[in-house]
């Protein structure tokens, strides 16, 4: 399989009034086509910074960031982002929100009716056929996040980037959306990079888990392969020995080898 996303010796230094702050140093990461990779770490470890560099929303201070063999220069629809707080435009309906993305990517290639059809398909894929004409403030948090996912998928991106996509949701809604994401990814064969701080979410969804050390100058601490068969069933996995072992390894990395700096100070 091809290497889709490649980060080589990435360093990210932010310059603020209080001086320089090196968030990332020597970050190396390869994501293959069709792979689901989770980036996990304590808050403030720079995992979102990694995602934003792949998205092109941030420029790395040094190092090389590639997507499909080309250098990443700025954001683009081939690297669609599902934002943590859904980031839907509140003055547009669900349909209009997704349509804006579809129109921007395919507006010059296909007809107007086809643009609307694609929009419908994307919303239907995330199970929102009935809410297309509603405004974001009229639907629940879980549904908003689905629209966010639909918007990203409708762009037919090479890589789907998700920044703690279910972080703001309650546990039941989160579980439901994880299952749905898993189903959609299986169907679309999408390549996904997801930032999370939820260990179960990472193990359940990923092919590989990238564990990051704490900042400043955070880097990739360890990479774990998740060799669980798909489709994965969360109830059956709860007592699965291999699932428990992988989960244990992630927990041991996060809470023994790289404890949260806030807790260590306290």
């Amino acid at each position, binding site marked *: 399989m091809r290497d889709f996303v490649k980060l080589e010796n990435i360093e990210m230094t932010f310059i603020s009034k209080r001086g320089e702050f090196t968030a990332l140093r020597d970050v190396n990461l390869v994501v293959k086509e069709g792979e689901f990779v989770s980036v996990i770490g304590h808050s403030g470890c720079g995992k979102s910074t990694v995602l934003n560099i792949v*998205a*092109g*929303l941030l420029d790395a201070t040094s190092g090389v960031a590639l997507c499909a063999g080309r250098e990443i220069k*700025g*954001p*683009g*629809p081939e*690297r*669609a*982002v599902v*934002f943590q*707080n859904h*980031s839907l*435009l*509140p*003055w*547009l309906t669900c349909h209009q929100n997704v349509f*804006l*993305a579809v129109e*921007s*990517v395919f507006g010059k290639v296909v007809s107007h009716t086809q643009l609307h059809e694609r929009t419908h398909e994307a919303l239907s894929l995330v199970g929102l056929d009935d809410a297309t004409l509603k*405004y*974001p*403030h009229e639907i629940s948090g879980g549904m908003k996040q689905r629209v966010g996912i639909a918007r990203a998928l409708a*762009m037919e991106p090479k890589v789907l980037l998700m920044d703690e996509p279910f972080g703001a949701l309650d546990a039941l809604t989160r579980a439901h959306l994880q299952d749905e994401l898993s189903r959609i990814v299986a169907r679309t064969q999408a390549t996904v990079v997801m930032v999370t701080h939820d260990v179960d979410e990472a193990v359940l969804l990923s092919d590989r888990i990238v564990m990051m050390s704490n900042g400043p100058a955070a880097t990739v601490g360890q990479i774990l392969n998740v060799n669980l068969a798909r489709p994965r069933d969360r109830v059956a996995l709860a007592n699965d020995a291999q699932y428990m072992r992988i989960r244990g390894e992630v927990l041991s990395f996060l809470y023994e080898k790289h404890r949260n700096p806030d807790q260590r100070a306290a």
Partner: protein
Amino acid sequence: MSAMPTQGRVLLDTGVLKTESLRTRFQKLLPSARGFAMGVVAPFAGLILLIGIWAIVSTTSPQLPTPLKTWHSAVEVFSNPFYIKGPNDQGIGWNIWNSLKRVGLGFTLAAIVGIPLGFMIGRFAFLNAMAAPIISVLRPVSPLAWLPIGLLVFKAAEAASIWVIAISSVWPMVVNTAAGVARIPQDYLNVARVLKLSEWKIFTRILIPATLPYVMTGIRLSIGVAWLVIVAAEMLTGGIGLGFWVWDEWNNLNVEHIIIAIFVVGIVGLMLEQAILMVAKRFYYD
């Protein structure tokens, strides 16, 4: 056999329903009673207190007309609002209409200049740095200080008063529009970048809708300022209008009419504000 218990339950159900509806009706009455006290009784009491104080003051100061005398005068004024007895003696309706027309004209000019200017200042940091000192210096200037400049440049009283309205009501729109553009959430701009939206789409789909609530606040403040300024401007420039009417009746020593004018200015100002608020509500999201 089976019909009996069912019937019994129906009776029981309706009984429960009845007591519940009575209780809910009672519960609904309580907050509505409080709402009635706060929404009707309190404002009414305030108004009566004001009129009471006015009545007491008017007994000690013979030049100040009593509330009753003013009321009779108001009934007379409003019984024939659209008479024309010459260039300087016209009905209250014409006075209100002419003042509104000047405010409308001056405000429209201010909006045409102020809103686009605000957009540009908010979007481009360089323009903001350029405009900030000028705005800071000119904004606190009393509106009437602009009148001589207007008279000098336009050589006409009518144009000068519109100029005063425009220059003094432009600032809230510039400042609020600029603040709105500058405060567009980074999330929306990130969406625009990821979606690779064109400049035009960014403008129409993100910039304008995100800024509209701020623009509407600017418009509301501007109209408030414009209406505040009109009385003073008309007092100095003349012509038919509420401000001139106040000045004219001061010269006639018709204090009842001056008090009527004060109420009219206040009520029309309130109505303008409420009208803008109603329009503005349509642009608030979430």
